[in-house]
C-alpha cells in the first residue's frame, strides 16, 4: 500500500516535471511560433487580395512590397494612416482583433486595422475578420475594391471546426464564391453577405448578389461566417460610409 506522503510526493514531482517541460517548450518555442503565426496572418491578408506566388519563405517580403499603407480606424470612422517603415512593424498589424471586437460589443471605443494593398496599380482594402464558430474561433480577411462595395476576395481560418464539414470554409471552392459579391444594395444600405443554407438560388433575385452557398452539413459554421462578416463589417461601417461619401 502507498502512504499518503508517497502519493503527495509523487503527484508533486509529476506536476512539476510536466509543468516545467511545457513551460520550457512554450518559452523556447514562442519566438518561432509567433513568427509562423505572423507569416500566416500576412499570407491570409495577401491571399484575400489575390496576390499570387505567396510561399512561406517570401511572405514577409511580399507583404512589405504589396501592402503600401496600414490604417487604424476608430468607431467614428477616422483612419490613422501608417506608411513609412516596414509594414510588419506597423501599429495596425499588432492590433488584437478579439479584444477590440469585445470592446465594440460593450459599446466602448475600439481600434481596428485596415491594410491597403496596391496590386499592379489596383487599390484593395483588406479588413480582418474574427468570430466564433462551432468549436472555437473562426477568422479571416475580406478584401474590398476601391468602391468599398465589391468583394475582391476572402480567406478564412479556424481553430477546430469539424474536418470535412465546417472546416471546408477554408477551401477555394467556398472562398471563390465571395468574389464580386456586394455588401451594399442599390439604395446604399448595408446588407452584408449572407452564407445561405439551401443555396443562393433560394434567395430573391435582387438579393443573390449578397449571398453565397453554405457548406452542407456545416450549418453552424456557415452561420458563424455570416455573423462574423456582418458583425465585423458593422464595426468598420463608420469608416466605410465616410469613404463612400467622398
Amino acid at each position, binding site marked *: 500500500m502507498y502512504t499518503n506522503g508517497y502519493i503527495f510526493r509523487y503527484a508533486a514531482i509529476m*506536476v512539476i516535471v*510536466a509543468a516545467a517541460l*511545457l*513551460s520550457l517548450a*512554450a518559452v523556447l518555442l514562442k519566438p518561432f511560433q509567433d513568427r509562423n503565426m505572423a507569416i500566416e496572418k500576412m499570407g491570409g491578408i495577401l491571399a484575400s487580395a489575390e496576390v499570387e506566388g505567396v510561399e512561406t519563405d517570401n511572405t514577409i517580403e511580399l507583404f512589405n512590397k504589396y501592402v503600401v499603407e496600414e490604417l487604424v480606424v476608430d468607431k467614428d470612422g477616422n483612419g490613422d494612416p501608417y506608411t513609412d517603415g516596414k509594414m510588419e512593424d506597423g501599429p495596425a498589424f499588432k492590433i488584437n482583433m478579439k479584444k477590440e471586437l469585445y470592446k465594440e460589443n460593450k459599446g466602448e471605443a475600439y481600434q481596428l486595422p485596415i491594410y491597403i494593398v496596391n496590386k499592379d496599380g489596383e487599390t484593395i482594402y483588406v479588413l480582418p475578420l474574427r468570430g*466564433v464558430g462551432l468549436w*472555437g474561433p473562426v477568422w479571416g480577411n475580406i478584401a474590398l475594391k476601391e468602391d468599398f462595395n465589391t468583394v475582391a476576395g476572402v480567406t478564412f481560418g479556424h481553430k477546430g471546426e469539424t474536418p470535412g464539414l465546417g472546416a471546408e470554409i477554408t477551401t477555394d471552392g467556398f472562398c471563390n464564391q465571395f468574389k464580386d459579391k456586394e455588401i451594399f444594395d442599390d439604395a446604399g444600405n448595408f446588407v452584408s453577405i449572407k452564407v445561405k443554407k439551401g443555396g443562393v438560388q433560394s434567395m430573391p433575385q435582387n438579393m443573390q448578389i449578397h449571398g453565397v452557398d453554405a457548406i452542407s452539413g456545416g450549418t*453552424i459554421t456557415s452561420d458563424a461566417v455570416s455573423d462574423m462578416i456582418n458583425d465585423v463589417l458593422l464595426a468598420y461601417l463608420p469608416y466605410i460610409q465616410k469613404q463612400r461619401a467622398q
Partner: protein
Amino acid sequence: MQEIFNIFIKSIFIDNMVFAYFLGMCSYLAVSKTVNTSVGLGLAVIFVLGITVPVDYLLNEFVLKEGAMAWLGPEFVDVDLSFLSFILFIAIIASMVQLVEMIVEKFSPALYASLGIFLPLIAVNCAILGGSLFMQEREYQNIAEATSFGLGSGVGWFLAIVGIAAIREKIRYSNVPPALRGLGITFIITGLMGIAFMSFLGIKL
C-alpha cells in the same frame, strides 16, 4: 437571472452534449444497458460537470487568461498562460473523477461494480473536457453562468443516457436480428435520436 436560466435550458436541449455535439459517446453507448446504472453514471456526470466547469472558470479567469494574473500586481499583466489550459483543465477533471470514484466505491459498491472501467473513463468523457473548453471559448460573464452551463450540460447528458437506457430495456422484448443485438442496434437508435434532436438546432434563446 433570466440569462442564467436561458443558458441552463439551452445547454440541456439545444446544445445537448450528446445529440448536438456528439460528445461523451463512449460511456453513453457502453453503460446504457439498464436504467439504474445509467441514472448512476448520469448523476456522476452532472456532479463532475457541475464542479469542474466553475472551478475551471475560476482558474481561467484568475490564472490562465492573458492578463488574468493582474490581481498579483502590475508586473503580471502580460502573463499569458493559456498554453497550460488543456493540461490544467484535465488535471482538475481527473482529480474530480478520482474523487467521485472513491465516493461511489465507498457508498455504492454495486454501482461501482457495474460501472467498471467506465467510471475512471468519465475523466476522458469528452463531454466533460468539452464543457470546460466551451466555457472558455464562450466567455461566460460570471461564475453563475458558468455553473448553470455546467449543470445544464450535465442534465442534458443525463436525460440522453436515461432515454436510451429506457429504449434499450424495451427493445429486449423485440425481435432484433441476432448480429445487430446489443451494441449494433444501440448505435442505430442513437443515430436516429440524433437526427430527431437536430430539429432543436434552429431555436434561438
